[in-house]
């Protein structure tokens, strides 16, 4: 595990799902929120930009640190996740609470394995809530950004100046923001109007946040208006468009295949082989699927270089009405394998990638499983069934009865 820790490469991922309501509008409303929601105008401590938290991320978690009740909750409080209980939020970006979930198990007699919580995601610094910089990565993997500077506003523009204008172009001024532009039911801005950029994410033209990195591309995506939800019945399909991997590369440049020959390709067309595998893959040993129903929210893909909002919005659903898999021109991105905030697995991967089998005996593993196979420590890896299941956003185990890594969704080596 330790050797893997030092040699394994974390692909870049982004902080995406922050601060927006599950409905059409929210507190931020696509742009700068009410000043008093974050700033203490007349009684702030010095050196805090009139913020009232100990740091920027603590100020954010002040509102976003809760479980379940609303989509904008992305940090489960410690009090709600005792040992064996997973973080409760299921947003596409993941719950930062996974950073607090460390695991220890004995895969075989005399051998103890462990997995620190900090391996599960982006280690934002939020002192008030016990979130600290990574002790493993002093700089961003594949980059030089100081890890102690990582905060919510490294990726999100807390003031939300970036906007999508009526013609579909992005700018930091030019028309007032009338609402969020993140959702499949977001309003289309008329002439003289604008909507906010996806998730208030930074992009071309917006200033640098904590960590000092300036983004040179736009993160094009659309999310269903309700998304902090169980995926047991139907998936939450986020439509990712152009720019995802390039955007992540702002802080993780050497993780981008354009800059390195030793990392997994990103922002490259799947091509006929990988797209074909994706569409036919159902699970280990089962390649009988079709493109009409092959979409899997655990392994999303980028819709080629799409920037058109309407095209993306048509794919962003939660009712299962759009289940089509990728075409050959669709692309692999960082978020195909990683979540933006955090996951239940090491390297913030979307699935358990630290062992041979992610499901056994037809079920998700867990130390408390009724299956004598699935409860074995080498499969459970310190987790309860509830924790494993929640790490897959409650997705029903629908793969092979002895399922191997979901790398095989595109590569079909199993």
């Amino acid at each position, binding site marked *: 595990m330790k050797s893997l820790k030092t040699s394994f490469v974390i692909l870049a991922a982004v902080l995406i799902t922050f601060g927006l*309501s*599950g*409905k*059409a*509008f*929210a*507190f931020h409303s696509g742009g700068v929120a*009410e000043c*008093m*929601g*974050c*700033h*203490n*105008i*007349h*009684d*702030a*401590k010095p050196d805090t930009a009139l913020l*009232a*938290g*100990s740091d920027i991320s*603590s*100020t954010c978690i*002040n*509102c976003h*640190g*809760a*479980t*379940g*009740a*609303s*989509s*904008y909750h992305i940090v489960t*409080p*410690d*009090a*709600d*996740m*005792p*040992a*064996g*209980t997973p973080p*409760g939020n299921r947003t596409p970006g993941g719950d930062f609470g996974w950073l607090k979930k460390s695991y220890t198990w004995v895969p075989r007699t005399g051998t103890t394995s462990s997995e620190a919580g900090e391996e599960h995601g982006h280690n934002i610094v939020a*002192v*008030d*809530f*016990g979130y600290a910089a990574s002790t493993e990565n002093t700089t961003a993997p594949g980059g030089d950004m100081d890890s102690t500077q990582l905060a919510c506003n490294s990726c999100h523009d807390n003031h939300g100046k970036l906007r999508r204008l009526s013609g579909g172009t992005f700018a930091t001024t030019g028309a007032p923001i009338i609402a969020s532009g993140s959702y499949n039911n977001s309003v289309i801005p008329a002439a003289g109007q604008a909507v906010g950029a996806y998730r208030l994410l930074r992009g071309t033209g917006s200033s640098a946040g904590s960590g000092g990195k300036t983004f040179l591309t736009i993160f094009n995506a659309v999310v269903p208006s309700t998304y902090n939800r*169980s995926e047991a019945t139907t998936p939450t399909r986020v439509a990712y468009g152009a720019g995802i991997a390039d955007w992540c590369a702002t802080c993780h440049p050497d993780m981008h295949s354009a800059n390195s020959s030793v990392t997994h390709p990103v922002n490259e067309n799947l091509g006929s082989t990988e797209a074909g595998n994706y569409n036919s893959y159902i699970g280990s040993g089962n390649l009988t699927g079709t493109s009409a129903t092959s979409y899997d929210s655990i392994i999303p893909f980028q819709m080629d270089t799409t920037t058109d909002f309407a095209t993306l919005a048509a794919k962003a659903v939660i009712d299962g009405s759009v289940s089509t898999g990728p075409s050959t021109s669709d692309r692999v991105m960082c978020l195909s394998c990683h979540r933006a905030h955090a996951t239940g697995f090491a390297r913030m991967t979307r699935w358990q990638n630290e062992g041979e089998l992610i499901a056994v005996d037809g079920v998700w593993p867990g130390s408390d499983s009724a299956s004598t196979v699935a409860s074995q420590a080498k499969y459970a890896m310190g987790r309860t069934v509830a924790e494993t299941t929640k790490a897959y956003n409650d997705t029903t185990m629908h793969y092979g009865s002895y399922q191997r890594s979901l790398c095989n969704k595109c590569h079909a080596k199993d």
Partner: protein
Amino acid sequence: MDFIPNRIAGRILHLAVVSTVCLLAVVFSPSPSLTQVNAEGVKASYLYGLSDFTGSLPYTWPKIGLDETRNETYVIYGDIVRMFDENGMEVYRFGEDLGLGPISDLAVLGDGNILLLINRLESYELVLCDFRGTPASKIKIENLPPAFSGMVPNRLCFRQGRLYFVDLGTKKVVVTDSKGIFQDGYDLAALADFEEKKAGVQNDIVGFSVDSKGNMLFTVPTLFRAFRLSPDKTLASFGSSGSIPGKFNVIAGIASDDQGRIYVADSLRSVVAVFDKDFKFLAELSSRGFKPGELIVPKEVAVDNKGRIYISQAAQRGVSVFQIFDN
């Protein structure tokens, strides 16, 4: 359950030791300092943080329950319930060996039994325990009308023989008798005519309590407003955004004392604002800081019938207790 006799004996011994220690502490410690004074009729002094023999509770945003009949305070954190005497020292704990899962809230019933609310997001359980925390049975809310059948409560209050179950997400409240038989239901979002109905905004309830007269108090931070719903379903609200005393930044817990004064935690400014029963601003308790008597991101508040206010905080600062005085 063969460990119960040991628990009882341990608890008695624990109580004796704690009482002695606390008596000595009171005798030999300096008087608590006043943290905030206001000429409008209320002031408060910091007493202590809820503690065990290792120091103050190192918890972030624990939940608080009060048993005013027995002068005991409960702190809920994860799957553990810790009980404190009137001097703020832990005297008992239970839960972690029961395998119940995350305990969201509790209510100490009139007979001393404890009702635990276990919330698993899509489902919940109500576990009735004896005073030692030993599970005795599970109860269900009976005769629930269809309009409330889908709610999954994550808050629980007990006042004057009635249980209040609150689903902060759907903003619905069900009131039952102490056995869980439905008596009344409230759709707070509909009653309050939240702006979300007009603009699609999702406004969460964060703070909720019931005062001694049966009024429901709740806060909606995104609206910068606090509400009081009387038993006859008359709704009143107060508050507006701002960062001067008496205004709201990001509000959270809310509670009332026997005089009808209302206490509202402001998480962003790290203070607790005090209003009279007519919503007139009276005072602000404490200020942001890491020293004893200061607050870091307060969340829950509770007030007992001895005029003590309990405030849960972030940054692993547990629960601070203040004594409220009339000025």
